[in-house]
Every structure is written in C-alpha cells, then in structure tokens.
C-alpha cells in the first residue's frame, strides 16, 4: 500500500477523534478523543518516515508518544481535581468563563 493509503487512514482516525472531542459530554471522553487524534498523527509521522527513508520521523514519533503520555497523565490529574472541587466531570458544567 502506498503512502497515500496510510495518510488517508490517519486522516480518518483524526477526524473521528475530532468528532469525539466536539461531542462528548464527559471530560474523560474528550480526552479519549484527544488520544485518537494524537495517534493518527503518529501514524502519519511513521508513514512519511518509512516512505522517504529518513529515520527522523520515527524519532519524532518517540518524542510525541512520550509527551502524549505526560499530557494524558496531567490531564487526568486535572479531571480528578475538578471532580473533587466541582463534583462533576460533565464538560457542560464547566462554564465559568461564560461571556
């Protein structure tokens, strides 16, 4: 399969993840969508790296994975904190910055 196939796959997964971010009420559900989006980015990177013969893309992917993990940990910590304070994880209820 050519490069375009992998890119298409990544694009589709990205958009599904975006859909999840937009629609999910639960904050953790939103985070799951974010994970999907980041995943698709990784697929993109690796595909490009493989088809062009440059290993830099894969190294980039390593870094991305690490950072994603950090971000997920922190995000979930925040969700737990929010739950402690506001007793809710429903994103709709977190609208203090409402105009």
């Amino acid at each position, binding site marked *: 399969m050519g490069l375009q196939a992998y890119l298409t796959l990544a694009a589709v997964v990205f958009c599904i993840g*975006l859909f999840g*971010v*937009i629609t*999910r009420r639960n904050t953790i559900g*939103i985070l799951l969508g974010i994970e999907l989006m980041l995943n698709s980015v990784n697929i993109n990177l690796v595909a490009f790296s493989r088809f062009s013969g440059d290993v830099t893309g894969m190294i980039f992917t390593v870094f991305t994975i690490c950072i994603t993990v950090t971000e997920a940990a922190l995000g979930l910590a925040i969700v737990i904190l929010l739950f402690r304070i506001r007793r809710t994880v429903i*994103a*709709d209820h*977190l*609208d*203090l*910055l*409402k*105009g």
Partner: protein
Amino acid sequence: MTDAGLHTLIALLLHALSFLVLAVVFPFRRLGRPAAWFSILCAAGSLVAAGIAWNHGVGTVSRVVWTWLPSGGQTLATVGVLADGESTIMLVLVALIAFLVQLYSIGYLSEEPPASLGRYYAYQALFAFSMMGVVLAPNLLQLFICWELVGLCSYLLIGYWYYKPEAARAAVKAFWTTKAGDVGLAIGIVMLWRQAGTFDLTEMRVLVESGALPVAGLSIITFCIYLGAMGKSAQFPLHVWLPDAMEGPTPVSALIHAATMVTAGVYLLLRLEWLFALTPDVLVIVAWIGAFTALLAAVLACAQDDIKRVLAYSTVSQLGYMMTAIGAGFATAGFFHLLTHGIFKALLFLGAGAVIHAVHSNDLQHMGGLARRMPQTTIVFLIGTLSLAGIPLFGGFLSKEEILGAVWAGGLVGPFALLMLVAFLTAFYMFRVVFLAFFGTRGLKASGYQTTGSGGPALAGSTAGSTAPHSHDVGGGHDHSHVPHDPPISMSLPLWLLALASVAIGLYFMVAGPALPFGPAEPEFEAPGWLMPAAVGVAVAGILLAWLTYQQRTINAASLAAAFGPIRHAALRKFWLDDLFEGLYGRVLLAFSRLIGWIDRYIVDGVLNVVSAWTLTSGDDLRTMQSGRAQDYVYGVAVGLVVVLIWVRLG
C-alpha cells in the same frame, strides 16, 4: 491718481472718519451735540470734495484701486474708487443730501438725549460712507459689501427709536425684504463672475463691448441682479417695506428713502447698463414691473392720511418711473430723474418734517390752513410739489419728460400709458396734500390751533382705515403751545437750499435743453412733439381735480371716493400684499421649518438610533458565542479550519 479719483476718495473717507471717531470714542459720542457738529463738519468737507471731484470728473474716468484679494498670481478683487461722470455726479447728490439732512437733524432732533443723538450721527456717517461706497465701487464685490452695509444702516436708522415696537418691526421688515432681493444679487454677481472671470466693472465692460462675454445664460444673471435692485428700490412686490419705514425720523426718510438708498437699485442698473443691453427680455420685465409699481403706488398714495406715507408711496411710484426708463433702454433718462427726484423728494420730506414738527402730528386731518402760520415752509413745499408734478420751470419737469419720451421711443406703449396715468395721479395726490395741509380751514381736532374761517364739513373719504398716523415722530417739540410756526434756521436752511436747487435745475435745463453733463452728448431719441403738452396737460388736470375736490369743494370728496369704491377699499388694505407676505412667511416658511425639524428628529436621528440599537442587540446576541465551554471553542476552531481548507482547495 488724478484729481477726480483723489477727491472722491477724500469724500468717501471723511465719512468713514466721522463714523470711526463717533463709534470708537464713545465719550465723545455721548456728548451729543458736539459729536453731531463734528459729523456735520465732515459731511461738509465731503460735499466740497465731491464737488471738486465732479468738476474734474466730467468726461474722464479715474480708477484708483488697491489689490485686496490676490489669488494665484492674479487679483481676485480690488478695493478703491471708480470716478467717472456718473459716479461723481451721484456722489455729489449723496454728499449734498447727507450734509443737508445732518444739518437739519440738529434742529429736528433737538430734544433727543445726547447719547441717542450721538448714536444717530454715527449711523448717519456710516450710512453716508456705505452709500458712497456703492456709488464709487469699481467692482461688484465692493459694491455688494457696501450694498449690504447700506441695508444695515437702513435697519439701524429706521429702528432708531428702537423702544417703539412699530419702529423695530418696520426696521426688521425693511431688512428682510431687501435681503430677499439681496440674495438674488449675490447669486447674480457670482454667476456673472463665473461667466466673465472678473468682478471689476471696467474689465467687464471691455469684455462686453468686445463681444467676448458669452450671452447664453446672461438673462438669468441680469434678472438676479435686478432682484437686488428690486428689493432696494422698492419695486413690486418688494415695495412693502418702504411705507413702514416711515417709522424712522423724517430726516432719515429724506435721506434714505428719497434720495440715496432706494436709488441704489436704479444706480446699479445704470452702472450695468451695458450688461443689461445684452438681455432685452429682462429689460422688458424691468419696464413692466416699474410701470406697474408706479401705478400701484400712486393709487395707494391717494388713500393715505399720513403725510409721510403719501410721500413714501410717491417715492415708490417715482422709482417705478426710473425703472421703466431703464427698462426701455435709456438708463440715462432714468438717472436724470433720479438726480432731480433726489432733490425735490428730500425737500418734500424735510418740509413734511417741518410741518410735523410744528403740528405734532402726521395726520393730514389734523392739518389745514398752515400757509398763514408757516409761509416759508409752504413756499418750499409748494416748489417741491410742483417739481414732482412735472410743471415746467421746476426741477422735475424735464426729467419726467425725458422718461416719458424714452419709454415712448423704446416702443413700450403699455408702460407709457400707465406712466401717463401715474403722472395724472401724482399731481392729484400731491396737491391733495398741499390743499389739505396748507390751505383750507381744517384741522381743529387734536392740535386745537385756531384758523380763520369756518370749519368745513368732515372730509369724508379719509377714513381711519388708512394707516394710522402717529404723532411720535415729532422731535419732542417746544412747549406745546400748539401754534405752528416756521422751523428754526437749522431746519429751514436746508429747505431753502433744496428749493433753490430745484428751481435752478429747472431753469437751467429749460435754457440748456436736455443736455446732460454725462452720457451721450446728443440726445438718444427724439420725443414726439405732442409729448410735452400731453404730459403737462395731464399734470395740470390732476392739479385741477385736486383743487376742485379739496379746495373749492366743488366735487364732493366722499362721492369721488365712492366712485372708486372697490379700488379704494383694496388700497386701504394695501392690496393685501402685507398679509400675503405675512402668511407666506408665517405659515409656509414656519410650516416648512417644522417639517424639517420633524425630519431631523425622527428620520436623521432615527437612523442613528436604529444603528445604535442594532449595535447593542447584535452585541448581546454575539455574546452567547462565548459559552465558557472549551469544547465549543474547539468546535469553532474545527469549523474555521474546514473553511480555510475548503477555501484553499477551491481557490
């Protein structure tokens, strides 16, 4: 600069000096009589200078100008004097009447408080200066400025007794009515400048005579200029201010409303004769309006009881005469009449002033038999009346002949007929005044002075419907002994001078023929042989009718009045012209301004209010975009991204 130019400048500036001193140095002005004598002195000097200028100015043209408004390398407007035959002789008239009136006023206004007297003389000086500015103006811009100043002085002088509501109203009316004409003048001047490229009269004349001025659209320009003349020279329908202007002191009426300001319109048309010659259709309008005005005013004069009103309407009528001559194409004839009329009308006004001063009333009904008590006044007034009626040997005779001849030669038969009728009426109403005031045995009412002879029957036909006479105009008068007498020397001297001048002019022209010291040397037209006898005959007929009615009582005045019932009734209402103007102004104009106000409040402001309200509501609606939820913002970002991508894809 030649002598003529220099002397006209001196004449002009002497009055300016007088005004400046009186206006600025107010302690001096408040002294009253010293200030008055200073002004009179300046006026005398101005008269001498004007006389010298006339002497030098005949047959020469002297143009003395200074650049006033430079514009792009050229001169847009200048200021200075243009002294030629016409302007110098007009200058002499203005200077003479101004001097005589100022001299007369010392006696007439002797009872005024000093501060008011000083104010009066300041206005007189300003007026003389501005009138001379109009006369001597070398370009239309200066003419217009001085024209407006003249209008201002008229307002100031008519409303001299400003604490009287009628005077204040009359002053405003004069100002407004002439202003209506002045708008036309301003428009005409600007349009003319656009066509000719210059304001200067000399340059413009060169353009016109070389045929370089495009004639297309010139009719509108000359008509607009004529509108200005219409206002100042009291042509129908802008004549309504002149009778009301009699609220001012009588010397003011003599100066402004007989000899100088009202003649400014005629003078303007004379100055621009060569321009108007290019638009004969406008000239026809001028002639017809002039003739109609003459007739209208003459009819109105027959129904007046106030002696000053009679003279006012007479002035309007004579101005119509002059305008008709100009409309016929012979402006010189009109100008000639202007000069003679200036003298004898001023004489008549000043004489009327003497009468009013003596009798303490303007009402003809209160007068009668004054010839016995005031012989000097009677003689000079009679001289003036004979001049006005156009009797040979007196001043107005030849000028009236000239006008009638000019109108006939111009082929305007209609106006000619009207003017002949007016000549008859003029003689009639003037001699009515003479017989009522100086002869006869009337006047036993308010004045209470005794005359010999029995009191006659009530003079029917002069009902109280005519404009109410006032007795305020008297200069306070001496102790009210109510015995009328000739005026003091300060007042009678000008009277005699004017009377002598009038007779002198009459005799001179009888001898020398109609050879004017300016204008074409040869007469421009030949009057038909029957003209002179016809004109004189018409005048004599008028005198005869007046004599029969008011002196001999052969014809009953009441039945005479009844014969012209409807006309008389309309005349007493001034042909409803005043009401028309008032209605026009009061209803139409004010309604229009109310409409504009409504539009301003609801439409103009309404638009703004709608815009601001819309801003507020849309702001409120847009506020909901900020929900505070991060998800919605991500959604927004995604939408934006999609839009951008699609745009890039498509573009």
